[in-house]
């Protein structure tokens, strides 16, 4: 019975997969954009040996305003035994220098959108086969619609014009991985809010709270209604021990999103830490209609803090 069920399900699963497989092979012919774009001001560092990672990262960091040479990046990036650089290391090196590494969506249209916003795109390519990969980092700096070509800073080539189909094949063999590098003060135009906020949250995770705070404030300017941006501002103010500003930021988030569980929880914890038990009590009381594990925790902690010693307001 179980075997029959397994094979039946296998058969059923194969049908939609086969249909999808057919679609993925067709290549769109229409150009991605009408106008050619070339970010001619992007720095160029000719790659030495197997050092495409440091060269590509220095290129996009330079475009974002950092003054950095690939040689300075080698120590932190290059793994001699692997003769290369891992994607996570590239992203981590970007964060260490106080910049955001934001993943772009996995489409060619997303690359064009970034170029039009003035940002070169660092991409990973597999120049050989899936089973015997030859990994390579390059930076897309332009697109020529009339020729159906991308323009790349790649290896020793400052402007390598690669046919679109060839690029699509090498890029898809690397799961269409691409990032752009941003100064945390630069507006995140043409980027999905989620991807940008994730990059900012990653800065918070490694303890780069000043940079994270700047990035979340930038995000808030671009997406004023985004609760994660407001939370990021408040949380990083807290981590920086700027408590009065943090309280204000949590309150601003709660004004816009009164049912935000995380905001209630974090503000309650902060108020308790500051010894402002009365305010914490009032906060969880006002959140009476909310439920959830975080609200429960907040209620428990507030109750455990004992009576409200100050003047009830």
């Amino acid at each position, binding site marked *: 019975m179980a075997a*029959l069920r397994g094979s*039946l399900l296998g058969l*059923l*699963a194969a049908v939609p997969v086969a249909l999808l497989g057919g679609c993925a092979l067709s290549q769109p012919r229409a150009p991605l954009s009408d106008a050619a774009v070339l970010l001619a001001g992007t720095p160029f560092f000719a790659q030495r040996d197997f050092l495409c990672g440091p060269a590509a990262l220095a290129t996009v960091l330079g475009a974002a305003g950092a003054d950095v040479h690939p040689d300075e990046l080698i120590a932190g990036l290059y793994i001699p035994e692997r003769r290369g650089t891992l994607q996570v290391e590239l992203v981590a090196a970007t964060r260490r220098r106080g910049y955001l590494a934001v993943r772009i969506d996995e489409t060619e249209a997303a690359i064009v959108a970034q170029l039009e916003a003035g940002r070169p795109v660092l991409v990973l390519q597999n120049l050989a086969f899936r089973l015997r990969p030859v990994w390579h980092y390059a930076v897309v700096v332009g697109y020529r619609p009339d020729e159906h070509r991308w323009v790349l800073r790649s290896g020793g080539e400052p402007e390598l014009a690669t046919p679109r189909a060839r690029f699509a094949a090498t890029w898809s063999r690397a799961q269409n991985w691409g990032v752009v590098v941003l100064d945390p003060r630069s507006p995140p135009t043409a980027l999905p809010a989620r991807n940008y*906020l994730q990059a900012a949250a990653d800065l*918070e995770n490694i303890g780069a709270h000043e940079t994270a705070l700047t990035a979340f404030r930038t995000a808030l300017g671009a997406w004023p209604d985004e609760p994660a941006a407001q939370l990021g501002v408040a*949380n990083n103010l807290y981590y920086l021990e700027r408590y009065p500003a943090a309280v204000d930021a949590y309150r601003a988030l709660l004004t816009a999103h009164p049912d935000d569980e995380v905001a209630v929880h974090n503000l309650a*914890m902060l108020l308790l830490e500051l010894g402002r038990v009365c305010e914490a009590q009032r906060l969880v009381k006002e959140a009476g209609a909310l439920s959830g594990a975080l609200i429960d*925790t907040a209620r428990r902690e507030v109750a455990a803090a004992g009576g409200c010693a100050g003047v009830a307001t």
Partner: protein
Amino acid sequence: MLALMQRIVLQLLVVSLVVCAPLAPAQAGIVGTDAAMAMAERADAVTRINAVLMRDDVRAQLEALGVDPADALERVGSLTTTELAELESRLGELPAGGGVLGVLGVLLVVLLVLELLGVTNVFTGL
């Protein structure tokens, strides 16, 4: 044999203590932005999936298979984030319109969804 098992368990315990130690906050602590975003994303995924499971044709197919749609909705809430992502990609294959092919397509996807949700008694009738 037993001693070996004990050693392995102890070693695992030591490793997990080392890994967990820095995560335990000194104070009650706040929820980081990263964790909050993951929570919100999960809630959004559940909402999107439930909306699809509430679709008339999907409900009809569930009922035809003897599954209470309310049970299916409840099970969605207990899936891991990875399972939710897989479920969403399956539901993305649902045909939009009616017609014989549409009904057949809905049936295929619903069967796969039920397998994922662990409602396996659907197949006892086969």
